[in-house]
């Protein structure tokens, strides 16, 4: 490698970030620029706010999935937990036990924690594959909800939840068109910071990375693997519950048939955001960028007049390309390491 190229290369390396966040951000910016040129309607505050609004619930779910994926697992039951916790809470509050906004969230969080504990207990205790266990619990949670709690669509939420349904945190009306940012963007953003802080600054967070990197090594390093794993799923259950509540608040209704089935889209967004499916790698920033990218693409396709049916294909292609680039570069670096090893042996 020639000398003048080195600093440029280092700058590119720094830009890429630990999990390709830089590349992701560049793609995102590029897409926004192209769309803004192609369609003037795109580069407006109301479009931006609409994209943020549609990202809120996927982002919260994605944060939970991120934690599980960093720990080396995969969770397909979070949507079932979300709908179980939120719908049950609405039923309880609707039955004359409306505890105020904070109260209903506490109820939902408790439900989410219990369901998460079921996952965590089975997975940690018996060391079973997380995909299969959560597949099983997904069926159990959804079946139990529809059998024992209710299967009816509820059109009006309890007063405490309904009161924030139409609250906006930012309202700007310019040129006859208003731009509104839903108040629920605030907890979503706060949650991002909280999870980022937890992952980077607490022993629990470091433990999640350690387990995902190598569970046996984490155990020998003194991390309590079983206990950490259990808490991971409790935490994810609680975050799913928050996502479910916000989903219902923003949708202004409660449908027990919703959400379940959309798990794969969320997992795809997280993986797109640079989290390694093998565990041990991933960041909140990357995840947020991944979720935003998917939503921007969805929005662009609609504006560009492409049938919304192609959304799935676009996300699938993006996932394959994103992961494919990672896989190829990982292969190259393995080859480089091996080449270095051989040099070392020869010397």
């Amino acid at each position, binding site marked *: 490698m020639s000398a003048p190229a080195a600093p440029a290369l280092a700058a590119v390396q720094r830009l890429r970030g630990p999990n390709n966040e830089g590349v992701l951000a560049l793609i995102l910016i590029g897409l926004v620029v192209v769309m803004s040129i192609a369609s003037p309607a795109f580069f407006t505050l109301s479009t931006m706010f609409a994209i943020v609004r549609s990202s809120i619930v996927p982002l919260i779910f994605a944060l939970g999935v991120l934690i599980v994926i960093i720990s080396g697992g*995969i969770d*397909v039951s979070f949507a079932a937990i979300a709908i179980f916790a939120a719908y049950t809470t609405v039923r309880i509050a609707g039955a004359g036990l409306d505890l105020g906004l904070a109260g209903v969230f506490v109820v939902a969080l408790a439900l989410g924690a219990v369901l998460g504990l079921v996952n965590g207990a*089975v997975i940690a205790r*018996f*060391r*079973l*594959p997380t*995909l*299969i*266990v959560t*597949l*099983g*619990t*997904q*069926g*159990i949670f*959804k*079946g*139990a909800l*529809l*059998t024992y709690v209710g*299967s009816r669509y509820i059109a009006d939420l309890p007063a405490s939840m309904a009161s924030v349904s139409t609250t906006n945190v930012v309202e700007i009306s310019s040129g006859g068109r208003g731009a509104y940012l839903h108040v629920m963007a605030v907890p979503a953003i706060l949650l991002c910071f909280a999870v980022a802080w937890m992952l980077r600054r607490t022993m629990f967070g470091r433990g999640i990375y350690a387990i995902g990197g190598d569970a046996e090594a984490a155990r020998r390093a003194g991390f309590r693997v079983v206990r950490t794993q259990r808490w991971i799923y409790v935490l994810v259950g609680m975050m799913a519950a928050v996502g479910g509540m916000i989903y219902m608040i923003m949708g202004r209704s409660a449908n027990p048939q919703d959400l379940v*089935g959309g798990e*794969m*889209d969320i*997992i*795809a967004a997280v*993986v797109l955001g640079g989290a390694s*499916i*093998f565990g041990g790698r991933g960041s909140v920033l990357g995840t947020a960028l991944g979720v935003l990218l998917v939503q921007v693409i969805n929005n662009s396709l609609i504006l560009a007049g492409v*049938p919304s*049916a*192609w*959304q*799935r*294909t*676009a*996300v*699938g*292609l993006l*996932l*394959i390309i994103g*992961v*494919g680039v990672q*896989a*190829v570069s*990982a*292969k190259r670096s393995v080859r480089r390491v091996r080449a270095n*090893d051989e040099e070392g042996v020869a010397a």
Partner: protein
Amino acid sequence: MNDSSTSNNPLKRVNAQVGDRYAEMLSRVHVNRGSGRMMLLVVVAFAVFAALKPQVFLSPLNMQNIAIASPEIGVIAIAMMLAMLTGGIDLSLVSIANLSAITISTLYTSIAAGDPARAEQLMPVLVLIGLVVGLVGGAINGLLVSRVGITPILATLGTMQIYNGIAVAWTGGRTLYGSPDSLTAIGHATVGGVPMLFVVFVVIAIAVGVLVSRTPLGLKIQLQGANPVAARYSGINSRRVLMSTYLVAGLLGGVAGILFIARNPTASADYGASYVLLVIVIAVLGGTNPAGGFATVFGVVLATLTLQIVASGFTAVRLSSYEYAIAQGVILILVMVADQVTWRRRRIARRPVGTAAVQA
């Protein structure tokens, strides 16, 4: 994956060691679990519902329904088993099956619009095209997994979205009607009281069974899943093995699409959406080790029948499909836990011998 530290040892010794470990795994872990216990589960499930509601459950119509509904799920589950045998997974199978069914239906209707008799004659060609669609889907998966090196769960998660997106865009989300009458006739025919579809299922199961346990490719697939490192040292071309596995899985997906449309002359993008997770349940229940290396086709067939018996039994005793979802989850987790507990007990029982060997 600490093979680099041992690679300084003579290759032969490593090979022998890893090979022994692998043989031990195959012979001790999960062995014969699929067939033995699944047999019991089928009998128990059958007996319970036969005792609870004999007049409904034991009626010939119900028996035929079980036999007609099982094949399409069973064939996809066998394909899933193959992918799991290599330590992978294939989430795109149902999407492939739907694409194959949609292709057949679209081609038939467009030809039949001009010349119905000709469209009818072309039935075998249409079926063949359906299989080709499956093969192409499988080939794309295979390339992504074996060449590009994407983890199977992600590669097939992506292709699942792509194939499904194509199907949705193609059909506009609507259900397509129309397929050759002769195909429908085959779908409704019976041979000595047994539905033709079930016969096809059994034939495919036997074919895949022979492929897995009696051919060099089958042996390589098993070895690849049991221990990729040992497989590499044994000179197995893992790229080619993975490619073949996903090709066969895709082909079986195409077969499932043909079964879809033979049973019911319609095709849509979201048919069998709940099958994606159900077939994983069936494959695991049938004794497939999700980490790879062990599976039996017979076990998967029995698991398919068990779940189908439970489903129709639940209907017979008037339990809802929601309760069936609970039962599925509970059965899956209980069987997994039971496996794990017996496996650990065996390992603990063997440990004294193992430690002695290490000390010696």
